[in-house]
C-alpha cells in the first residue's frame, strides 16, 4: 500500500514514551529515585520524616533560583550574580525591618532591589550587547559589596515589630506539616512550567536561545524579553533570599556565597543546555533535588564531607555526558 503525502505528514516519529525516555531529565529522575531507594534501605535515618523535611526544605533555595536560572540559560545567557543578589535582598529586608518597618515594606524593598539589579544586568546585556558572563560577574562582586556597605558587615538578627511573622514565613509549616519554603517552590515551579510550555513568552525564550537572529527577524521583541529574563532571575534570587532569611533568623554578608555555581549545576543536571534553547522548570527542581540528596546521603553514609564536591561534580558531568552520547547517536 502506498503511503500518501498526508499520511507521512501526520506520522509521528516519536511517541510520548520514547520522547520521555530520551530526555536527560527522565534519567536524572531515575537516578534520584534509585538513590532515595538505596538510602532508605541502607540507612535508618534517611526515610525519617525529620530528614525528609530537612531535605525538601534545603532543596528549595537552590531550586527556586534554578527556576530563574533555567529561563536565563534557555535564552543562551548565564547569571552569575544570583548568590550576591540573594545576599543583597536579604540584607535590604533585614535592615528595613530592623529599622522598624513592617514585613510588607521589607519584602517590597527586597523585591524592588532584586528587580533593579536584574534590570541593570538585563539592560547592559540586551541593549549594550555586553556578554552576560561579564556583566553578571561584575554584579556578583558589586551586589555583595553593597550588602556589606548597607549592613556595615554586621549580622542582623532582630527584625523589628514583625520579627515573628518573618520567622514563620520562612521557618513555619502552614499546610500539613510541609515546610513553607517547599510550598513556595512548588507554586513557583508550576508558574514557571506553565509559562515555558503554554505562553508566547515562553515559546519566544526558546526561540531566542535557538537562533536569536531568527527571533529578531520574525518579530520577537528580543531585547525587552532579555531584560525581563534577567529581572526574573534576580527576582527568584530575591524571593529565595527572603525565605532563607525567615528560615535562618539572621542575615550575614556570607549568605548565598558560591550559590550561583550550585544553582547552575542544578539547572544543568536537570537538562538545561548552556548553549541555549533547552530547559524545563521540572528539570530545575530535579537537578536541585539530586544535588541535595547527594549532600545529605554522604553525611548519613558516614562518608567524609570532603567528597561532596567530587560527587556533585561527577553528577554534572554524568548528566551532560548522557546528553552528549544521545546527540552523537543522532548525528551519526
Amino acid at each position, binding site marked *: 500500500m502506498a503511503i500518501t*503525502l*498526508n499520511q*507521512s*505528514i*501526520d*506520522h*509521528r*516519529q*516519536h511517541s510520548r514514551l520514547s520522547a520521555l525516555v530520551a530526555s536527560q531529565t527522565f534519567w536524572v529522575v531515575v537516578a534520584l529515585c534509585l538513590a532515595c531507594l538505596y538510602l532508605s534501605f541502607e540507612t535508618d535515618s534517611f526515610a525519617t520524616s525529620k530528614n525528609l523535611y530537612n531535605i525538601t526544605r534545603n532543596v528549595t533555595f537552590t531550586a527556586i533560583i534554578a527556576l530563574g536560572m533555567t529561563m536565563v540559560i534557555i535564552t543562551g545567557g548565564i547569571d552569575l550574580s544570583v548568590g550576591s543578589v540573594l545576599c543583597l535582598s536579604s540584607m535590604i529586608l533585614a535592615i528595613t525591618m530592623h529599622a522598624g518597618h513592617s514585613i510588607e515594606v521589607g519584602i517590597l524593598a527586597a523585591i524592588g532591589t532584586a528587580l533593579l539589579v536584574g534590570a541593570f544586568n538585563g539592560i547592559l546585556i540586551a541593549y549594550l550587547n555586553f556578554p552576560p558572563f561579564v556583566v553578571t560577574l561584575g554584579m556578583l562582586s558589586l551586589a555583595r559589596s553593597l550588602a556589606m556597605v548597607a549592613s556595615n558587615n554586621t549580622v542582623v538578627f532582630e527584625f523589628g515589630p514583625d520579627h515573628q511573622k518573618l520567622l514563620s514565613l520562612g521557618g513555619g509549616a502552614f499546610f500539613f506539616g510541609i515546610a513553607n519554603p517547599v510550598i513556595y517552590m512548588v507554586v513557583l515551579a508550576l508558574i514557571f512550567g506553565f509559562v515555558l*510550555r*503554554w*505562553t*508566547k513568552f515562553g*515559546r*519566544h525564550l*526558546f*526561540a531566542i*536561545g*535557538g*537562533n536569536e*537572529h*531568527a*527571533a529578531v*527577524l*520574525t*518579530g*520577537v521583541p528580543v531585547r525587552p524579553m532579555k531584560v525581563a529574563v534577567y529581572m526574573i532571575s534576580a527576582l527568584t534570587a530575591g524571593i529565595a533570599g527572603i525565605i532563607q532569611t525567615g528560615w535562618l533568623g539572621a542575615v550575614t554578608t556570607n549568605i548565598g556565597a558560591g550559590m550561583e555555581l550550585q544553582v547552575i549545576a542544578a539547572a544543568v543536571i536537570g537538562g538545561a543546555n548552556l548553549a*541555549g*534553547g*533547552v530547559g524545563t522548570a521540572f528539570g530545575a527542581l530535579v537537578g536541585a533535588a539530586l544535588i541535595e540528596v547527594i549532600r545529605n546521603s554522604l553525611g548519613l553514609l558516614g562518608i567524609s564531607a570532603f567528597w561532596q564536591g567530587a560527587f556533585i561534580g561527577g553528577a554534572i558531568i554524568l548528566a551532560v555526558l548522557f546528553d552528549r552520547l544521545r546527540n552523537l547517536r*543522532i548525528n551519526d
Partner: protein
Amino acid sequence: MTVLELSNVSKHFGAIQAVNDVSFALAAGEVVGLMGDNGAGKSTLVKMIAGNFRPSHGTIRMEGKVLNMHRPVDARGHGIEIVHQDLALCDNLTAAANVFLGRELKRGFGPFGILDYAAMYRRAGEIFAELKSETRPRDLVKKMSGGQRQAVAIARTRLSDAKIVLMDEPTAAISVRQIAEVLALIRRLRDQGISVVLISHRMPDVFTVADRVIVMRRGRKVADKKIAASSPEEVTGLITGAIEAA
C-alpha cells in the same frame, strides 16, 4: 495586474551608491529572477522592499499605495513575506513552532490566552500538504533536510494572505534533489497567484522557474526581459558587464 511597483528607487550609504534609480513592476502570480554579481545591489534592493532599509530616493508602491515601513515586521502587514537566505529557523523548535514563530495561535482570552498546540500542528500540516512537502509538523527542525528546512521557511509565508514572497538564495546550500523540491515550491506559490522575487546566483534555477529576469550591475538595472527572450549566455554577459545593457 501590478502588485508591486518601484519607481526611481535609489539607496546610498554615505558616498556609496548601492542602488541607483531602479524602477520595475511586478504582476500578480509572476516569478521574477533577480540576478547580479556580489555587490550589484540586489540585496540592498530586496532589503528595501522587505522594510529593512528606507530608500534614499524614489517610492515603493504596493497595489498603488506608497509603502512606509520602519521595521522588517512591517512588511508582513503589507502582504510582503521574506524567506531569508539563512532561513531564520530555530533548530531547537519543531517545524510547526518555527512556522508560527512570532505569530503563535492562542486559545483563551486576550493576554491570558495559551498556545494552541493542536491548531498550530494542524494548520502547519495543511500548509505542508498544500506545498506537497513531506515535512512533519512535530519534528524538530534540527533533524531536517535542506529541502524540508526550505519548506518550513516557505510555509511561514502562507500564514497570512501574502501577495509577494521574496526569496534570498533559496537554492544556495542544498543538494540537487532538494533544489528541484524548492523550485516546485516556488511554482506552487505562483499557482496560487503569489508573486515571487527569486534572488539567485544559479542560472539554471532562474531559467527553470522564472517568467522574467532582472539583472543588476553596480547598482543599476541593466536588463529586464522575458525569460523566453533571453538566454543564460546573455544574462552572464550582462552580469559581468561584457554586454552593456539589454
